[in-house]
């Protein structure tokens, strides 16, 4: 891999990043990639050490904004777009990160989230009712994607009539954040979508100020913690973050999990017979083929990791899917095994940025996956269809999951 330049966007690596990660982990676990001008970190020990180390900074947007988008020639739409991203707590270090996350904490505790279960179940049933008679469907496009969108839109307080608007906007943000194979035109379209969403959430926030409801935007507007509160811009940015983070990644957890089951009938049987509960099964889906492909950090200072010196200012890609198949930690790492007892995967990260929405993602996948198995008898992958994966660096997700069943 040091002789042949690493290409994470090659069709083979997009379809199966694990072969690339296995090779890197064995031969050059802290690898400098000239192509990406980044370190690629692939061992479990190194990934989890970096995730809990503040010297691996999350503040990677503001240097970009300062360098690329502050001059007189900078595209104003793009500059405003990145101004929204710059307020995301995922791009902050303490103390800013601590402040933003503290204000959201109560909405995402396991107990708060458990109260949403009946709604998640009802939305899941509604979507499955719509396809059950067809005998075939794309379970990403017509199930996982609209389900996770509806859940987070309801949590934010978006009226049902406006929910379809969210899909286009969510796609726009994905294009910006996931750094796909984009063209400048695509970037501009994405920036336009982001600004529409910003304005929409601004209206929602103003409405919530006048007439607060039992939703997240109202909670953000009212958030008071030790006399601290969110500015209007922070409410909007955080709303955008929650929409995005609550949608795309959970879609991929459900899609990748269903695919893993359909490709492993023996494991599916363990789940369907009740021999394994959905809880441990989801942890194994997160380990075996989770939604986060790389996590980006920027070095705050020089740090030695795995025999290499990572210099201040350099970028680092931490690779959870590689860590999650490290044979130093997991027996038979390439096998889906729902019966694993110890499963210290880093699919939701580790440390201060550990996924805030993890309890919600676990709940949604825990409802969505068994519901499909219950409702669609004889479910199998559509033998006529080919699977394809989104060609993006940060996430691992199917472009569709074509299936058929007895209807």
């Amino acid at each position: 891999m040091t002789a042949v330049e690493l290409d994470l966007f090659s069709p083979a690596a997009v379809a199966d990043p694990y072969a690339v990660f296995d090779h890197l982990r064995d031969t050059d676990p802290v690898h400098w990639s000239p192509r990406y001008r980044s370190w690629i970190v692939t061992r479990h020990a190194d990934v989890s050490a970096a995730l809990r180390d503040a010297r691996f900074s999350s503040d990677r947007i503001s240097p970009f904004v300062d360098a690329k988008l502050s001059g007189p020639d900078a595209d104003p739409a793009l500059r405003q777009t990145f101004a929204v991203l710059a307020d995301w707590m995922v791009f902050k270090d303490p103390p800013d990160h601590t402040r933003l996350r503290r204000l959201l904490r109560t909405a995402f505790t396991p107990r708060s989230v458990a109260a949403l279960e009946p709604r998640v179940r009802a939305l899941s049933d509604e979507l499955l009712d719509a396809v059950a008679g067809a005998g075939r469907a794309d379970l990403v496009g017509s199930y996982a994607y609209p389900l996770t969108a509806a859940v987070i839109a309801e949590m934010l307080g978006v009226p049902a009539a406006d929910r379809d608007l969210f899909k286009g906007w969510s796609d726009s943000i994905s294009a910006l954040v996931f750094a796909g194979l984009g063209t400048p035109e695509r970037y501009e379209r994405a920036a336009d979508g982001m600004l529409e969403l910003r304005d929409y959430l601004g209206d929602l926030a103003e409405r919530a100020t006048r007439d607060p409801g039992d939703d997240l935007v109202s909670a953000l507007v009212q958030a008071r913690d030790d006399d601290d509160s969110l500015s209007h811009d922070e409410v909007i940015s955080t709303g955008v973050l929650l929409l995005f983070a609550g949608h795309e990644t959970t879609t991929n957890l459900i899609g990748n999990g269903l695919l893993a089951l359909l490709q492993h009938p023996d494991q599916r049987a363990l789940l369907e017979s009740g021999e394994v509960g959905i809880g441990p099964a989801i942890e194994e889906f997160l380990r075996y083929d989770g939604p986060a492909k790389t996590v980006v950090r920027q070095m705050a200072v020089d740090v030695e990791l795995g025999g290499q010196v990572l210099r201040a200012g350099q970028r680092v890609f931490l690779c959870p899917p590689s860590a999650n198949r490290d044979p130093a930690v997991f027996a038979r790492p390439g096998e889906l095994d729902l019966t694993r007892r110890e499963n210290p995967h880093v699919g939701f990260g580790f440390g201060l940025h550990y996924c805030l929405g993890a309890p919600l993602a676990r709940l949604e996948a825990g409802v969505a996956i068994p519901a499909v198995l219950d409702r669609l008898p004889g479910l199998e992958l559509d033998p006529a269809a080919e699977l394809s994966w989104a060609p993006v660096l940060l996430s691992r997700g199917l472009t569709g999951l074509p299936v058929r069943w007895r209807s």
Partner: protein
Amino acid sequence: MTARVDRSRCVGSGTCTQIAPDLFVLEDGTARVLAPGEPGSRAVRDDDRTAADVEEAVESCPVQAIEGGPA
């Protein structure tokens, strides 16, 4: 009121240390309970405030790694 952190489950999200920085501390990336008498540690623990803080930490932990118990 006292608490126990299962450090093999802990993912170091810092939730408990934000709720009660004088009861919990992050050490090598995971949380542990500060012993009474340690620097920065809460002296009085048999009060309602401590019971409320421990309960909030137990309920807020994203991976349910904290258990409460009698003082």
